[in-house]
C-alpha cells in the first residue's frame, strides 16, 4: 500500500516535469525565432515569426513531429514598412525579455521539483 503511494507521487512529479521540459523546449524555440526577427529587423521582405505557445506545448507533449502550424507569420500587418518588413525592435525586445523571464521561472520550478524528488528519495 505504501509502495503504491510512493509510486503515484513519483508519477505526479514526473508528469509535472515533462510538462516543464516541454515548456522549456518551446521557450527556447521561441527565443530562436525572436533572435532571428531582431537580426533581420532591417532586411527587406523579412516577415516576423513567432511561436503560438499553447499549440506548440500541446504538440511537444503529444510528441507529434513539429510542423509549421504552430508558427505564426505576419503578426503585425499594420507595421509593414516600405521595404515590406514588419519588425518593430522595441516590441521584439519586449518579447525577448518576457520569454526569458518565463523560461527562468519554469527553470526554477523544474529545479525545485528535482530537489523535492531527491529529498523524497533520501538523496538530498
Amino acid at each position: 500500500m505504501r509502495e503504491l503511494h510512493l509510486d503515484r507521487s513519483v508519477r505526479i512529479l514526473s508528469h509535472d516535469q515533462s510538462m516543464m521540459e516541454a515548456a522549456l523546449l518551446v521557450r527556447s524555440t521561441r527565443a530562436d525565432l525572436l533572435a532571428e526577427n531582431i537580426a533581420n529587423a532591417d532586411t527587406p521582405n523579412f516577415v516576423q515569426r513567432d511561436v503560438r505557445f499553447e499549440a506548440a506545448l500541446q504538440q511537444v507533449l503529444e510528441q507529434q513531429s513539429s510542423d509549421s502550424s504552430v508558427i505564426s507569420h505576419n503578426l503585425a500587418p499594420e507595421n509593414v514598412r516600405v521595404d515590406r518588413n514588419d519588425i518593430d525592435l522595441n516590441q521584439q525586445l519586449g518579447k525577448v525579455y518576457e520569454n526569458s523571464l518565463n523560461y527562468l521561472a519554469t527553470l526554477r520550478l523544474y529545479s525545485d521539483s528535482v530537489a523535492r524528488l531527491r529529498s523524497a528519495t533520501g538523496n538530498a
Partner: protein
Amino acid sequence: MSIQSILGIASSALTAQSLRISLIAQNLANADSVASPEGGPYQRRMPVFEAIPLQGDAGVEGIGVKVAAVLRDRAPARATYDPSNPLADAAGNVKQPSINPVLEMVDMLQASRSYEANLSTLETARNVALKTIELLK
C-alpha cells in the same frame, strides 16, 4: 536554450550592422571627394541586407542576416561652378558626390539602434544559459 543558434544569429547581425556603419563612415568621409579610382566623383555606397539560413553541425540553425551586396547610389553627381578647379569641365562645373550628411546620420542612428538590440539579445541568451548551467550544481 539553444544558445549556439542565438549566438550565431545575433552575431551575424552584429557583423552586418557594423559593415553598414563603416559604409556610412566611408560615405561621410568622401562627401567631398571629386575623384575616385573608378573615375568621376565618389558614389555613395549602401548595403543590401539578406536573410540567410545558418548552417550548423545539425543542419540549419536559425536564420541570420548578411550583407549580400554593396550597391552604389545612382543619383546624378551634383555639379558646382568652380572654373578655377583643375577638374572643372568646359562649362566650369566640377562634379561633386551626391551625399546628404543628414541622411547618413539618420541611417547611422538606425544602424546603431539595431546593433544594440542584437547585443541585448546576446546578453539575455547568455544570462539564461548561465542560469541553466547552474542546474548542474
